[in-house]
């Protein structure tokens, strides 16, 4: 059952490669694949919700010897959210990706990326996680460079090198872990690391993993690749990355620091909290200095990651639940924002706030597609962002971390500043160039429909925050009690 999230995109990726020459078939295949994936993931979600953690021992080898695939509620939530976004992006890609990129492998790469993402979300094995990360990373390397324009290549080079550095650290950390604990299965590791937890090595390895995944999820002070590269490829690809890549990094951090390294939480989680604060702040400050819509949104990714990280740093069940809710919220809202930006660009031909303008005048509906997720990201009620931040604030007060809460609120205000700045410039202000003044270029339905759906989902996530948050709380409860995970994988706690 839980192998399907990996197999479906993989099978379709291969078939897409076989149908390399036929654009229509490739397009259809990617929609079918992501649709199937979504159905499967909905199913998985409900099974996990009802029956608890699901485990498959690949090859029928008992854990910890073979590779275990494990889906707990947290993974299931992530699988579900990412597959919904992927499905909508598959539609958006029909029109949102130019012919050259479609010819040179966009669709199979899209599928391969999903293989990596789903693999990383499902696996319960340390080295297998590395492999899926590489699958994900390799696809993203190609996607980001695909097209080969100058800025893109420049961005890609930084992206590739910094991510390879992270991979090296990751691989080294795996080697050290195996050296220390003699196993790769994460459930088994959790037990074995507990046994040697008193020694400083475990903590230092924890720190190495923190850095490795920190680079991938773009936290302070390791995020440099993101602003350097995320704005260079077409916005569809940026949306894909923002929804999946950094979030999978975050997923892994949360998994590692609840399952593998919960000891010495005083120390590691203080580091996390400090980094989270800076991540929020530097991200939002970076965004404030931008006038390019894509750059601005890219910096905001960092800032939002800071919030999720903050929940991990607070390290209470409630805080983790808020982080998970935040993840879901930001995946939807951020994708919506990027895709809206893409539509803006398709109408006015620019991402530059100085050139844009006047969209609210003629395109009220389209403006709302930006406005609603923007307000949500800014944390205004009754949208999902508000509940996400409220959860974190409540959790923070319970842990008496007043400073970080103050910071979170300040950053929230600055996010509002950025979002309304975009609104002022791109939607309210009359464009400087009168030729844009009465733009009525139509936006294709392939683009419009998915954005509308994702915005509606995002709004619903806010209005019906309760059931979602309760599920997040269940997921957090599972995370904070690793014995459930360990028992599910190893059968019994030995």
């Amino acid at each position: 059952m839980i192998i399907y999230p990996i197999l479906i995109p993989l099978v379709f990726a291969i078939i897409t490669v076989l149908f390399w020459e036929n654009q229509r078939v490739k397009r259809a295949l990617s929609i079918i694949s992501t649709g199937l994936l979504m159905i499967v993931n909905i199913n998985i979600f409900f099974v996990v919700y009802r029956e608890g953690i699901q485990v498959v021992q690949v090859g029928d080898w008992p854990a910890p010897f073979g590779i275990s695939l494990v889906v707990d509620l947290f993974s299931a939530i992530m699988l579900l959210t990412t597959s919904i976004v992927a499905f909508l992006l598959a539609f958006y890609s029909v029109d949102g990706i130019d012919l050259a990129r479609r010819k040179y492998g966009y669709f199979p790469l899209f599928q391969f990326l999903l293989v990596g993402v789903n693999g990383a979300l499902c696996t319960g094995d340390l080295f297998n996680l590395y492999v899926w990360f590489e699958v994900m990373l390799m696809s993203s390397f190609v996607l980001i460079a695909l097209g080969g324009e100058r800025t893109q290549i420049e961005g890609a080079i930084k992206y590739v090198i910094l991510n390879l550095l992270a991979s090296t650290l990751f691989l080294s950390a795996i080697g050290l872990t195996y050296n220390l604990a003699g196993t790769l299965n994460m459930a088994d590791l959790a037990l074995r690391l507990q046994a040697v937890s008193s020694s400083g090595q475990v903590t230092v390895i924890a720190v190495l993993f923190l850095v490795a995944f920190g680079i991938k999820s773009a936290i302070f002070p390791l995020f440099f690749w993101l602003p350097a590269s995320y704005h260079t490829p077409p916005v569809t690809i940026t949306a894909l990355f923002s929804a999946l890549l950094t979030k999978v990094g975050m997923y892994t951090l949360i998994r590692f620091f609840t399952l593998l390294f919960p000891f010495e939480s005083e120390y590691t989680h203080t580091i996390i909290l400090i980094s989270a604060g800076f991540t929020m702040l530097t991200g939002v400050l970076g965004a404030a200095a931008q006038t390019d819509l894509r750059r601005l949104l890219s910096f905001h990714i960092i800032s939002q990651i800071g919030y999720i990280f903050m929940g991990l740093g607070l390290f209470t069940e409630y805080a983790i639940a808020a982080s998970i809710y935040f993840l879901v919220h930001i995946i939807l809202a951020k994708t919506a924002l990027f895709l809206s930006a893409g539509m803006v660009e398709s109408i006015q031909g620019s991402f530059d706030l100085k050139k844009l303008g006047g969209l609210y005048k003629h395109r009220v509906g389209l403006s709302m597609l930006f406005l609603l997720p923007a307000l949500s990201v800014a944390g205004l009620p009754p949208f999902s962002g508000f509940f996400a931040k409220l959860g974190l604030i409540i959790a923070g007060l319970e842990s008496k971390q007043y400073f970080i809460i103050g910071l979170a609120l300040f950053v929230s205000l600055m996010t509002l500043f950025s979002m309304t700045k975009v609104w002022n410039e791109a939607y309210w202000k009359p464009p400087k160039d009168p030729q844009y003044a009465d733009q009525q270029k139509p936006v294709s339905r392939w683009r419009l429909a998915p954005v509308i759906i994702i915005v509606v989902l995002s709004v619903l996530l806010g209005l019906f925050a309760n059931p979602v948050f309760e599920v997040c709380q269940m997921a957090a409860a599972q995370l904070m009690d690793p014995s459930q995970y360990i028992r599910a994988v190893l059968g019994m706690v030995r």
Partner: protein
Amino acid sequence: MTALSITILTGFLIAILAPFLTRLMKHRAAFVLALYPLAVVIQLLALQPDTLTAPSIQFPWVPSMGLWMTFTLDGLGFLIAMLIAGIGTLVILYGGEYLRDDPYLERFFLWVIIFMASMLGVVTSGNALVLFVFWELTSISSFFLIGYKFEYESARAAAWQALLVTGAGGLAMLAGFVLLGQITGSFEINQWMQNSNLVQESALAPAAFILILLGAMTKSAQFPFHFWLPNAMEAPTPVSAYLHSATMVKAGVYLLARLFPVLGGLALWNQVVPWVGLLTLVGGALLALGQTDLKKLLAYTTVSSLGGMVFLLGLGTPLAVKSAMLFLLTHALYKGTLFLVAGGVDHSAGSRDIRKLGKLAKLMPFTALAAGLAALSMAGIPPLIGFISKEYVYESTYYYSNLPFILTGLAVLANVANVAVAGWVGIRPFWQQPEQKDEDLHPHKESLWLWIPPLVLAITGLFMGVFSQGTAQTWVAAATSAVLQEMSKVKLSLWHGITPMLLLSVLTLMIGVVVYLASRTLIPRLAAFWNKLSSVGPNIFYSRSMRAFLSVAGWQTKILQSGYLRYYIITILVTTVTLAVVTLATRYDSLPNPQWTQPRFYDVIFIVIIIVSAILVTRAESRLATITLLGAIGFSIAILFLLYSAPDLAMVQFAVETLTVVLFVLVIYQLPKYTKSNYPIHANVLHIIVSAAGGIMMVVLMLLTSAVPSNSTLAPYFMESSLPLAKGHNVVNVILVDFRGLDTLGEITVLMIAAIGVFALLGLKKGSKRGGNG
């Protein structure tokens, strides 16, 4: 109550439908849409609050975060809800006419109704977090209404400013709410009231209080956050009348009144709130006297009045609370009227400059009547309700134990300004000759729906004054009881006999008239004075801090995101090494000692080759030398693999190494030549230090982890089961294709992707002979 809360929430739906209705019916949609607030008015009247705490209904929204849709209607909520819905009805009718031919009328209706519903939500919700939700919704709708004429830069700037200022306050308030929730364990306001002793004992209470106060201050435009309100006059006049005078700006006052039973007992309350209010009361009044624009005049007096209300609540005596409630009602009535009048005048005369307006009574008799009544009320002249209100205010200050004279004196000062402004706005444009002739102005007759709403409001004010024993008394009493949490009687009457208050009223009026008459000399001088002062005012502080924020943002981004890859790498490595060192250093005691095994002769040779080649690679300045050295490293590693029991590895390493070399050789002439590294010495030294630190860190970690015996169960299991269960003798291969086959599947997927990548990057440029012609 259930019905009422449902009606209120329906507002959001109606708002969304409003644009479609407007497209169908044009401005006549106003008549349909006005039914919404009217329905609320009717339901409110049917509920007539007379008990101390009215029954509330509750249903869960996000209970896991403490958000319950609790609706409560007590006297306080009732009073303000009546204002919202009542004035709202008039404003919708008025707005439909005022913006009759405006292309964005539908958006006006949309946001005004969203505002209306949210504002009603603010005053009826009994849950602090839900209150916050509605509170922010009023800010959002205010943003869109101020920015209604979004094509004007001034409107955009004002909308933005209002949103940021109130948004900042809102966030502070949220933090305060959450703190209170922490203290009392609930977000239900009635729980807070019941546990007010807990609150007062808590060490966190002062912080919560200050944070909530910040929210109230920004929303109700208290000094030093008052500046957004006059700027918000960029909004169309019906919006100014409704949001920025009669209702939304009262939200802060409402909040203070609502939480008075919870926070009023704090010592800080009496130490802070009155002063904030007083400063605003006086400051607003003085600022008002320097204005010539009708709306600005009204805006500054609104600031002043809001200050007055906050001041009275800050005093906190039963008398002061009563006066505050009465003042709140009165102010909404006359100020709403005057704003609507100002809109009517602007609409028909085409100007809002009081120096250019005059003799309009003939053209606009009903507007003049409404204006006159409201002005009299504002000036505090009997028998209008404004008179009673003012007497009450004086009484509160006069009988306040500390500083009666100073407080009363300042109140008189503020009221003098009110008298003058009332005259300038309500009398002068209609009856006096204009001070300056403006030939461009061609006043036309008033339109029906621009005078009915203000007149209705004005007459309400008159009736409430004349029959002051009636409705007003009940409402104010109920509101006061709700604030004080005890039954309180309010007796309103026009005549108390000759009291000090009456004398003060007369005095106020006399000075006021003098000021009114002195407008020609007074206004320009004060205006010049304020202009000079404005360079240090909070408005400047706002823009300065924005500018500072932006330059800090630009500066830090330039520093962090310099664009130079090596700085990024250095930062990452320094972070890693520092964290590792700190972690190990603080845990030094528990670190075990590693053990060594003896190396052999051949091992040493190959290791030396590796080390030497690695060092030489860093010095090599030709690409060919680099490739050769890399090959040497790769092959030496392969041999080490072979020596140390890993023949498969050795083979793969050989093969891959060969291929890599072939690859390099194939493209070497397409690769850029080595540029001479021209780093300055100190940069090179830094790089060497960083690299050495990274290398040493890794060595230390390897040795440390090796020192702990790992007791792996994996290897024995694989060795034991390889043949019986997986039918293979070569365990490494069995692991690859069976035990951990999934890894291999992923690995070959990576290869596949890499090949696509190579093809995509090379092919895209070539335009391709073969690929991609589909």
